[in-house]
């Protein structure tokens, strides 16, 4: 979809210090294992203590990022709430499956079942903010967040002034193990900072909760403009090349979803061959997960706002461009869902 909309506020909980920090002086958090975990903020300023006790991790991360994002954007109501999540609340799903077994289907606590529902974070945000508008949750792996973006862009075209749009994901030790059985992760530990040293099968796992307020018009809060979001399902190389050329020919910075996974690296090689502008990775910052595209959008907008690329976060990039106005993000999830976003300076 090619419609211009404006990022009026944003917040990210990630394995980096993104929630409080300023990107220009943010340290690169190094993780030696293959699983990057979020740096969780103090939730108390955002969520009452009695609610906090009942909430599992992704509910807290989802709600808190959404609330901070709303506060930063200066809007009084959330408007439509549209999110993407590949896995929803894994913790609750795992808990309920186990309790069914453990208690032999009797006297079960319904809370994990309720919270395992994929739209529970959306419902929670609506409840806390009295958001009675449109509300939707997309659950399609590497298309989850990007479908939420397409939906939001349509809503803005339909007359809404703004939307609250986000993506959230968690990785649990149990799910990390499950996905290791189908080769999602490197078999040997690799530090996130060394991820791109060589291409080998698998990558590192990650997680995050990232929210944006998107507006139809630019205003004093505008951080960056999102001008296109394109989804390609299992494209052939010709299709992918054509889309990258169409959307990226005049970009001056590329943000690549490259993740050191030799099984699917050829798409990122195709990107490098098609768009030869300066390029930076982002998966060493957030790890691989279904809605990592939301983190990439946060990164693009943060860099455009800062007007500079902090070298501390990208030690693997030799030369960082100093002047850039138009960023193209290309990402794919295990070779199936490919997405291209265009982000511009306001």
């Amino acid at each position, binding site marked *: *979809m090619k419609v211009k909309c404006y990022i009026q506020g944003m917040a990210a909980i990630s394995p980096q210090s993104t929630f409080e920090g300023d990107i220009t002086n943010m340290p690169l958090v190094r993780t030696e294992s293959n699983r990057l975990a979020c740096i969780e903020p103090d939730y108390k300023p955002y969520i009452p203590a009695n609610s906090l006790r009942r909430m599992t991790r992704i509910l807290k991360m989802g709600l808190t990022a959404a609330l901070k994002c709303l506060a930063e954007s200066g809007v009084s109501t959330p408007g439509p709430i549209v999110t993407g999540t590949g896995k929803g609340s894994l913790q609750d799903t795992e808990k309920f499956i186990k309790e069914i077994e453990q208690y032999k289907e009797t006297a079960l606590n*319904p809370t994990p079942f309720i919270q395992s529902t994929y739209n529970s974070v959306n419902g929670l945000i609506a409840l806390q903010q009295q958001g009675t508008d449109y*509300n939707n949750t997309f659950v399609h792996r590497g298309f989850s967040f990007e479908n939420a973006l397409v939906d939001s862009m349509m809503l803005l075209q339909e007359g809404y002034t703004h939307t609250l749009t986000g993506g959230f994901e968690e990785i649990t030790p149990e799910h990390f193990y499950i996905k290791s059985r*189908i080769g999602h992760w490197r078999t040997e530990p690799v530090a996130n900072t060394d991820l791109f040293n060589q291409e080998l099968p698998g990558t590192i796992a990650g997680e995050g909760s990232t929210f944006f307020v998107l507006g139809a018009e630019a205003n004093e809060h505008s951080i960056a403009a999102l001008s296109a979001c394109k989804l390609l399902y299992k494209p052939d190389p010709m299709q992918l090349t054509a889309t990258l050329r169409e959307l990226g020919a005049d970009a001056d910075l590329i943000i690549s979803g490259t993740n050191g996974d030799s099984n699917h690296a050829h798409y990122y090689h195709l990107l490098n061959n098609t768009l030869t502008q300066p390029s930076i990775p982002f998966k060493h910052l957030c790890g691989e997960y279904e809605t990592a595209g939301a983190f990439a959008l946060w990164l693009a907008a943060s860099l455009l706002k800062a007007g500079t690329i902090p070298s501390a976060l990208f030690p693997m990039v030799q030369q960082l461009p100093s002047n850039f106005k138009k960023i193209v993000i290309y990402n794919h999830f295990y070779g199936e869902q490919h997405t291209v976003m265009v982000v511009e300076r306001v």
Partner: protein
Amino acid sequence: MAERVFITGMGMVTAIGDNVAENLQHLRQQKSGLGFTDYIDTIYKQVLPVGEIKLSNEALFNRAGIPVQGGFTRTTLLGLVAMLEALQQAGIRNLSKEPTGFINASTVGGMCDTEKVYFDLINPEKEGDFIESINTLDCADCTQRIADTVGFHDHIATISTACSSSANALMFGARMIKHGMYRRMVCGGTEALTRFTLNGFNSLKNVDKQFCRPFDNQRTGLNLGEGAAYLVLESESFARANNSTILAELSGYCNANEAFHPTSPSPEGDGAYAAMKNALAMSGHKLEDVQYVNVHGTATLNNDVSEGRALERLFGRKVPPFSSTKPFTGHTLAAAGAIEAIYAVLSIQHGIIFPNLNFSEKMEELSIIPVTELQEGVLIKNVISNSFGFGGNNASLVLSKYEG
């Protein structure tokens, strides 16, 4: 001016039939699909009635026209059966001829099969074929397997907003058409019975041990069901140029959140009221133009009060004939919105109002009662179809007779 959106194909499988014609036949014969499960491994096998499709997975592979193989969950297979009928009815043989998006809906994806092997998946000492089912843990798996089997290669998405999921899938597809992104979309949802959801709703004390009794004063809960349904949506200009058979128009829709409680609707039905009111306003029709409301009507204590109050608030003393078809199919969660959208189209096409089975006593909170006898030969031009879910997710659709 955005294009009108027409329905040009429908396919379904539910506890009352493996295709649209069988569903219609059993609705007419007032033959419920509720009974006990043959396929779910649960202590409630002979306790909690469900709307189960009496076809084994092997039989479903056969219906779907593909060889028995790993990785295809019951969710996927039900979806494929419904999808093949929808495409056939719309006369679509080759999806490459016209870019066509696919919007699917699911609440628990392949849980029906993964719950059987989950403890092996997390046990390093267990090895075997079950490992190929790892990807079926999520909701996108069924969508992609259906897409890959029948040949969708354009925009795909999976929506999960609990019991309103496939109503939202239809809405999203219709909006993509109105925005000119596609001229044709196929939208709906698929849901298989699972031990997970059965225990989930049972833990909420929302499941009736008897056959469910929507809008009855003695109702005590829902019965779960399984099924899948897809509708082919086309823009007016495409449908005309393509000489498509237009079955009905998707003339209005609304998604509204109630922001009241994580699982319960508000007693006055604020979300249901807003969804119906706005969907009808979008359709351009008036209150008196609605001849039938296919209600969400789960037969839970809270839903029926809330939805009934919303009907009374919206329509005043002139509430149109309404009924819940959940006593036929059970509550099919993510598939319910699309299944009931097809029932709405059948109601328009054949001039039928389906009876609300198992009703005997008016609810004390309401002054209205559902239709209890099959009505035939009724002129039905506009139907409201409701789907309400956890998280305050409310969705209403307006289906209208196509009159050129």
